[in-house]
């Protein structure tokens, strides 16, 4: 069993690797220039070029992929000739890159007024600015210096190098610097838990993603907690009494609710409960990422929408499975043994009837994820789906990659869980 799980986990890692490469390639192939996208239509060609360089887009694709995956500080630290570190100091909102000097103090460099300044942060957090004077000679005998800037790049400065006139760039977020000759954005890499900076917001993907994921999981978990018991009970009951009035009503109900797209059923629910009955808040008043459980009423309609769509599917699975089981010869055996009806149902039918749907239901998590994206979009719910949608529309590679990784983990992970449950329910397929 452990061996089997291990094999599946390695398969999952492989899938994730392939998916990440695929996403990278697709976004690469996509028309349009991200830098231009960020800076807006009126930025100059030079600005865009600089932006591209600062974002590392000038590097070959495979280098970018490996940087994204495994980070590049360990590579670039050779240029700086000092170890690099990524720490969050007191009084700062987010962690930053520093070079670590031999005495243990952290260093950054910054061009200020045409002069390179060294920022030293001592161990006790004290900060001091020292004019820089440690130029090194390159093979041409010119004075250069590789250092770390304040925006997470390794930068090549040349003494006396003129700052490019960047002008007033529209979005200018990452363009804090323009004095260096070469920019190499620093990354810790996904493997070390850093999904990178969002090109859309200019902020690290990680923290946002965690909050959004938490919101989405809340939504999904509540919906799941409703869907499962309702759907299984309805499905099993319908299957037990195939072709009865109960069965027919349940079947048609489930068929209809599954068929109506989430955005349509969401709209119907909003109209009914928020617009006409005015009993529930209709939509989109989540002010921040943290809101959903501060006002549980806000969750009602999204959960209801998801439940409506998904409950039908699971019901139909459970029903089909129950019908098959009820017609199985071993149920006939149980009947011929003279067992009372409820004993046949509880001891012989239900367990077997649950085996098939469990796997299918777990596979259906993919659909649930899709539903969540739409539902979040309908209700303006600040979840992972909305984040991904926005990112995709913006071609925000790092955000898409991170979201994709999470989704694949969820999808493949649930399949694994489904398989494990399956083996426990079905003694015929116990992995040795």
């Amino acid at each position: 069993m452990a061996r089997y799980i291990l094999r599946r986990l390695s398969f999952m890692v492989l899938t994730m690797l392939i998916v990440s490469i695929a996403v990278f390639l697709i976004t690469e192939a996509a028309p349009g220039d991200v830098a231009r996208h960020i800076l807006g239509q009126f930025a100059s060609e030079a600005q865009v070029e600089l932006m591209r360089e600062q974002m590392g887009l000038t590097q070959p694709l495979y280098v970018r992929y490996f940087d994204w995956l495994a980070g590049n500080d360990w590579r670039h630290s050779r240029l700086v000739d000092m170890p690099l570190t990524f720490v969050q100091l007191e009084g700062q909102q987010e962690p930053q890159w520093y070079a670590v000097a031999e005495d243990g103090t952290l260093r950054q460099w910054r061009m200020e007024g045409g002069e390179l300044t060294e920022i030293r942060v001592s161990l006790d957090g004290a900060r001091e600015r020292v004019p820089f004077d440690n130029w090194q000679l390159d093979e041409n005998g010119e004075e250069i210096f590789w250092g770390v800037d304040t925006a997470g790049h390794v930068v090549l400065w040349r003494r006396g190098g003129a700052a490019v006139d960047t002008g007033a760039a529209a979005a200018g977020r990452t363009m804090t610097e323009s004095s260096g000759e070469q920019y190499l954005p620093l990354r810790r890499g996904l493997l070390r838990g850093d999904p990178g900076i969002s090109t859309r917001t200019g902020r690290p993907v990680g923290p946002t993603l965690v909050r959004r994921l938490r919101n989405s999981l809340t939504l999904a978990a509540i919906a799941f907690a409703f869907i499962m018991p309702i759907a299984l009970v309805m499905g099993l009951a319908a299957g037990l009494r195939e072709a009865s009035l109960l069965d027919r009503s349940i079947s048609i109900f489930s068929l209809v609710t599954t068929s109506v797209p989430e955005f349509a059923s969401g709209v119907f629910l909003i109209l009914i409960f928020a617009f006409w009955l005015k009993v529930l808040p209709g939509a989109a008043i989540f002010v921040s990422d943290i809101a959903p459980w501060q006002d549980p009423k806000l969750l009602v309609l999204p959960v209801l929408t998801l439940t409506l769509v998904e409950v039908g599917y699971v019901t139909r699975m459970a029903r089909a499975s129950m019908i098959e089981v009820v017609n199985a010869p071993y149920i006939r055996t149980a009947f011929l043994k003279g067992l009372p009806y409820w004993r046949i149902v509880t001891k012989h039918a239900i367990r077997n009837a649950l085996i098939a749907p469990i796997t299918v239901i777990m596979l259906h998590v993919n659909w649930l994820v899709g539903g969540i994206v739409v539902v979040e979009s309908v209700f303006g719910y600040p979840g992972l789906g909305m984040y991904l949608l926005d990112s995709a529309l913006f071609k925000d590679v790092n955000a898409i990659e991170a979201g994709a990784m999470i989704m694949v983990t969820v999808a493949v992970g649930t399949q694994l869980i489904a398989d494990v449950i399956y083996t426990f329910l079905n003694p015929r397929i116990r992995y040795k």
Partner: protein
Amino acid sequence: MSVAETTPSKTSEAPAGTQRKWWEPLTLIFRSGVGTVGLVIIVFWVLVAILAPLIAPYSPLAQDSTAINQPPSAQYLLGTDNMGRDMLSRLIYGSRTILLLAPISVFCSVAVGTFLGLLGGYFGGLIDEVVMRILDAIMAFPTILLYLIIIAALGPSALNVVLAITFVGAPGVARLVRSLTLDIRTRDYIRAAETRGENPFYIMFFEILPNARGPIIIDSMLRVGYAIFSIGTLGFLGLGLPPPTPDWGGMISEARKYIWTSPLGVLWPALAISSLVVALNLFADGLREESTRYQ
């Protein structure tokens, strides 16, 4: 079993010497009440789509700046949208878009999926392993994410919508066809063909495929429903057809902004798309129920 033994078998059913036509199984649908309801709604929308230029009162793109977000009136039977376009006309033309794109994309995914499924199922071995691994990976992937990435990369357009749905749908078809093939492959008539030394592609397309058509047809019906569902979803998310093409999903997305002032604006397209998908599913489900009962 006791039932199966005595219910008249098909053999005794068909009067000797008469041939049944290929479409005859499809008439089964009239035995299923809900299936018939589905069929009627589908036929309604198909007629609407075909006759769109005749029945639509306005051009779907014509704007009337004096009538923006109007409720239903004699002039605009279903009201107008935020740009003063007639809802009814947009709905009618929207059916054209969706009823064109959905079958095309389903046809593509069925074609691709059938080929791959036959290939993997009939040859087995390494070919099967490779094909199925790739398809499994695609299927493991949340559908919505695939749509997002594909459309994000390629840009919203009709062609790309078709491509995306094909790409997303083909693995499912391939799996179905593969499992059918695996079953049919064990039949004696396939072995008979093999002992005649028939070409593998002859066996795949002339011996196996005709016998898999029933489930494939039913699956395709369901898929058309899903395709409409997906096209609507894409349109709603802003990944569908670029405006101002009349597209139900897109119409809902637009009208949603004005839901508090003119709620009917979202209601009509939502009803339209729901009725069509529900109808297709009812139809496919009825067909499946009846055909399995008929077996």
